[in-house]
């Protein structure tokens, strides 16, 4: 993986976005993420988390400046950008759009114009990484939910992204699936942005946390510190699930 250390993985300044029907979604967001960081993007439903994620590979474009991996999200850069930013969506059925698992994982690498041998190598590699190699010829409708979740990740990892963006990765997963996914994310060496409202999961997977509420970034800091601040969480519609104890504030 070649990365110029000086260039931030994500560099957003004064980004605002309104949906076509006029609903404001993002309001003057500034966010910088360095390569190799793992950041949790926290916030209640409707806070604009997913909207922000969609800006990272230019699927949405608002007012302001967004540069990802040193590339501005302008039409000329989108092709290169989308090869380097892996976006995993909330509903795996949206992302598994091919008719077999193998073809779905191969979709990205083939679009990158790789040689068939390289495509094959990458598909085999990411299927194995996610423990799906035996299900290669399965159609998506015959996969379990957990398998679908892993399949979407396989499809993105096969493109060897430098920045991985996961939207609610722990949603609807059983406890074993959650743990396995967290273990897997810890192994990856790319920059990680996890969009979630699952606080324990954010703590488990990310060093840094950013809270988004009403389209504004309201807090940014080490996950342990942010998640220990009960008042901050409460003010932003976040809370620890019943039975969990927040970490003790550092220092």
């Amino acid at each position: 993986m070649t990365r110029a250390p000086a260039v931030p993985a994500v560099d957003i300044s004064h980004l605002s976005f309104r949906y076509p029907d006029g609903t404001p979604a993002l309001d003057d967001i500034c966010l910088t993420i360095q390569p190799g960081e793992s950041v949790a993007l926290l916030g209640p439903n409707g806070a604009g988390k997913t909207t922000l994620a969609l800006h990272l590979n230019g699927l949405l474009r608002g007012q302001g400046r967004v540069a990802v991996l040193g590339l501005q999200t302008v039409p000329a850069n989108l092709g290169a950008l989308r090869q380097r930013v892996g976006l995993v969506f909330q509903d795996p059925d949206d992302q598994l759009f091919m008719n077999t698992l193998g073809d779905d994982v191969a979709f990205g690498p083939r679009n990158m114009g790789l040689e068939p041998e390289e495509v094959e190598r990458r598909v085999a590699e990411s299927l194995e990484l996610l423990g799906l190699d035996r299900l290669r010829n399965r159609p998506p409708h015959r996969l379990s939910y957990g398998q679908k979740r892993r399949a979407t990740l396989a499809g993105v990892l096969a493109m060897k992204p430098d920045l991985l963006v996961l939207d609610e990765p722990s949603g609807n997963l059983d406890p074993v699936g959650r743990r396995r996914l967290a273990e897997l994310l810890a192994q990856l060496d790319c920059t990680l942005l996890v969009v979630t409202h699952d606080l324990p999961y954010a703590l488990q997977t990310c060093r840094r946390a950013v809270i988004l509420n009403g389209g504004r970034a309201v807090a940014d800091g080490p996950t342990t510190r942010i998640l220990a601040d009960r008042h901050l969480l409460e003010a932003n519609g976040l809370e620890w699930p019943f039975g969990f104890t927040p970490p003790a504030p550092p220092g």
Partner: protein
Amino acid sequence: MDGDRRLPADPLDPRARLIALLGFVVVVVATPPRAAWPFLAYALVPAFFIGYERVSPRALARRLLFLGPLLLTVVGTRLLWFLLQHDSGQPTLQNEVWLLAVLGMRSGLAVLAVAAFMGHGDINRLAQGLRGLGVPAILTGVMEQAYRYWRLLWRELGLLRDAAGARGFRPRHLGDTVTLGRLTGSLLLRSLQRAERVHHAMLGRGFAGTFPTSHPLRWSRYDALFLLPALILPAAICAASHLVE
């Protein structure tokens, strides 16, 4: 699984399957209905492939059931016509029965052939074959996506109906059809929103308008082995039926 993963599960070129299928059906439809034996002989060609590909009898039966409504319509209207023109006498009844038998045999043979020649219905290979035969890529792409998502939407529709049913909705008369339409409409709304997200997911992985292909289309000796009997046998039977007068 086979040793080499790069080989498609199906060694046949999808174009060969489509050509065999179309050829067979055209020959069957073009065979003059003078005698039953050519049609019975045709049946043996798909029979072999049905056995070879292990097509389940239940799937076959279900497919044959599709013929029901239109066959009944034709039987009904012909019968009606026959009764209205009752002066024609006895041989006509026999002719009527024979005609319906021909319709049944031809359509039944075509159904058998689709089941036999399309293999295990790999939609990607089918789409690739169609593209190879000149069908616009946009159409085959839509086919692939439709095939991917219809089950999901059907399940969602079922969930919606269950949810409505749990609140006491049972479609019984015309007025309920509008309610059913509203339920379906909310599914359409969700489907169109899903389409947006699918589009995003595709773009996110570098989609630029066409599906990248898995294995390039290439004719092989398997295709010859398949096409020769699949095309020559029906052609021979057809020729024989013309010769034997």
